[in-house]
């Protein structure tokens, strides 16, 4: 890990985000297995460093368009846990009043504007948020995240071309976890390199180890600086790995066992933790007490969710249009 480039405080802060993101995933899987909450769940375990770094660098007014596998991105960006869990539990106190669910989580106060369940659709919308930033003469940036599989769908390409010709402050964050549902990245992605496609749009394209905090930090900072300075978009291909199947509970036999166990052995979150201790950036006690705090926060959020009221059928009539209209 070549983390010399970032200071200790930043590295610690990145770890703290990553630990929260990881703990939240672990809890989610536990809660599903226990039957407390039934939901379709796309585990992001293994991909925590990417959003932890992004969260570290981004401001609240920077916007995010993410995907079904995006809770890590959202927590990185500051999605409050109570509203998150209540939404996962389908309760009226959820950020989306239970209407959206895990695939459509939204929280504008922290710039979390769109979560889409359609592969590739985060990118075109992010361009609009970027356009608005420029119209506002703001230096805020617009992030979209998407997977390796998404890189082959038309929307992504249209969005990259538009961002480049309009020189928008959009940052395309491809989280390449090597699988798209059951399909391996190399098999369906011509060229085997997504970052290199950026050249065709005259935009910087950088492949980084998304599990390496320093590498990720440097690349993402640069992209953000470029965007804030009005120099246009960047495509980042962040190499990572997803530890579980596509949806939690699915048969993941299509994932080669050795590849998976090697990736899990190199789990970036405990690796970062060990590094913090080894480099005396934090003590075991400090981290352990922080981790206990996290668990308590999640306890609180889950309890809040489970105690919250369910929506009423009548709620279907509202939020279709601003004013209820008999159709």
């Amino acid at each position, binding site marked *: 890990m070549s983390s010399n480039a970032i200071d200790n405080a930043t590295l610690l802060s990145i770890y703290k985000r990553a630990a929260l993101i990881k703990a939240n995933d672990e809890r989610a899987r536990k809660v599903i297995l226990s039957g407390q909450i039934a939901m379709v769940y796309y585990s992001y375990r293994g991909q925590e460093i990417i959003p932890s770094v992004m969260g570290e660098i981004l401001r609240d007014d920077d916007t995010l368009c993410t995907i079904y596998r995006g809770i890590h991105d959202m927590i990185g960006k500051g999605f409050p846990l109570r509203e998150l869990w209540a939404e996962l539990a389908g309760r009226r106190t959820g950020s989306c009043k*239970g209407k959206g669910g895990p695939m459509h989580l939204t929280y*504008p106060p922290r710039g979390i504007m769109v979560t889409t369940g359609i592969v590739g659709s985060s990118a075109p919308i992010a361009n609009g948020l970027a356009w608005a930033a*420029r119209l506002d003469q703001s230096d805020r940036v617009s992030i979209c995240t998407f997977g390796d599989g998404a890189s082959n769908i038309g*929307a992504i390409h249209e969005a990259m071309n538009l961002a480049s010709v309009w020189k928008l402050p959009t940052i395309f964050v491809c989280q390449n976890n090597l699988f798209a549902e059951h399909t391996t990245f190399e098999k369906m992605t011509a060229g085997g390199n997504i970052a290199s496609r950026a050249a065709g749009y005259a935009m910087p394209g950088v492949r980084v180890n998304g599990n390496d905090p320093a590498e990720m930090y440097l690349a993402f900072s640069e992209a953000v600086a470029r965007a804030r300075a009005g120099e246009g978009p960047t495509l980042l291909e962040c190499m990572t790995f997803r530890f579980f199947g596509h949806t939690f509970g699915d048969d993941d036999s299509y994932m080669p066992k050795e590849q998976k166990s090697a990736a899990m052995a190199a789990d970036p979150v405990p690796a970062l933790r060990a590094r913090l201790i080894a480099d005396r950036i934090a003590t075991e006690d400090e981290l352990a007490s922080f981790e206990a705090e996290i668990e308590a926060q999640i306890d609180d959020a889950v309890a809040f969710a489970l105690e919250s009221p369910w929506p009423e059928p009548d709620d279907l009539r509202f939020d279709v*249009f601003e004013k209820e209209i008999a159709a």
Partner: protein
Amino acid sequence: MSAPATVPVAKKPTVTILAALAKAYQDIFAEDPKAITLGEDLADPEGGGITKMTKGLSTKFGDERVRSTPISEQAIMGAAIGASLAGYRPIAEIMLMNFTTVAMDMIVNHAAKLRFMSGGQTSVPIVIRTMTGLGFGSGGQHCDYLEAWFAHTPGIKVCAASTPEDAYGLLRAAYEDPDPVILIENLPTYFAPMSFELPDAGHRVPLGKAAIQREGTDVTVVTYARMAVNARAAADVLAGEGISVEVVDLRTIAPWDRETVLASARKTGRVLVAHEAVKQHGVGAEIAAVINEELFGQLKKPVKRVGGAFSAVPYSKPLENAYAPDADVLASAIRDLLR
């Protein structure tokens, strides 16, 4: 392009629908700094759009607010949606309605649903302008009326005008609406001078409100877009035969004005629903189903529907002419209802 023969040109031509829409654009941009627009060729270096509707706009209001785009309809719709989430009011042009087929995900899965899926935290106040309509021999991929798809999609409203005044008023009302609106514009009647006034800047056509364009007592025609032009012509002809036709132009196709339609149907007891879209599973089906249900036992005749033929839009002139009802076909359908 010129207006084809089947569009009746009024006696005192004063203004076109195109001019009215161009004025609406100008007035909106002059009044609201949040107004932005994008689409293929819309800015002045590209001539202000294929119909020149937006000519002058980018020069006057800046090319950051009035943007030509690549040929990338998903990117166009995405940019409009994103900008609207941040407080802007985009008018996005999808040049022809058939090209919405490459942007349906953005329109249906996103624009129409984000308010609901976010529990009301976000909204997408955009106008999608799109042109269509047969008459120029463009054939199977340039003329479809697809309003039924959008009417079937909760979260988006659908409008179409058949007069310059309504075109102006609808674009302005759609622009001010807090939710996505698709405004369908009929190309062949764009250029036909009609005896209407160019409205002043205060004019609005409230969404969801139909217009009774001809009052009558014998038969109600429920229609919109170019078919309303044809219906007015048919009504004029039939008046000479002593048949009194009430022409109801929906203007907002979804959600449609049930009250006005049902009141007229109750009065006349005979209803024709007419649109250029394919008849089967068109918007006319919904209207007929509702009228039949609400006025069960009160109608003199079952609701009659006419619409586009059950085929792709054909190229050859005689086929194109036969594809959708003209004023003559409407008139005979109305006479049938009185038999």
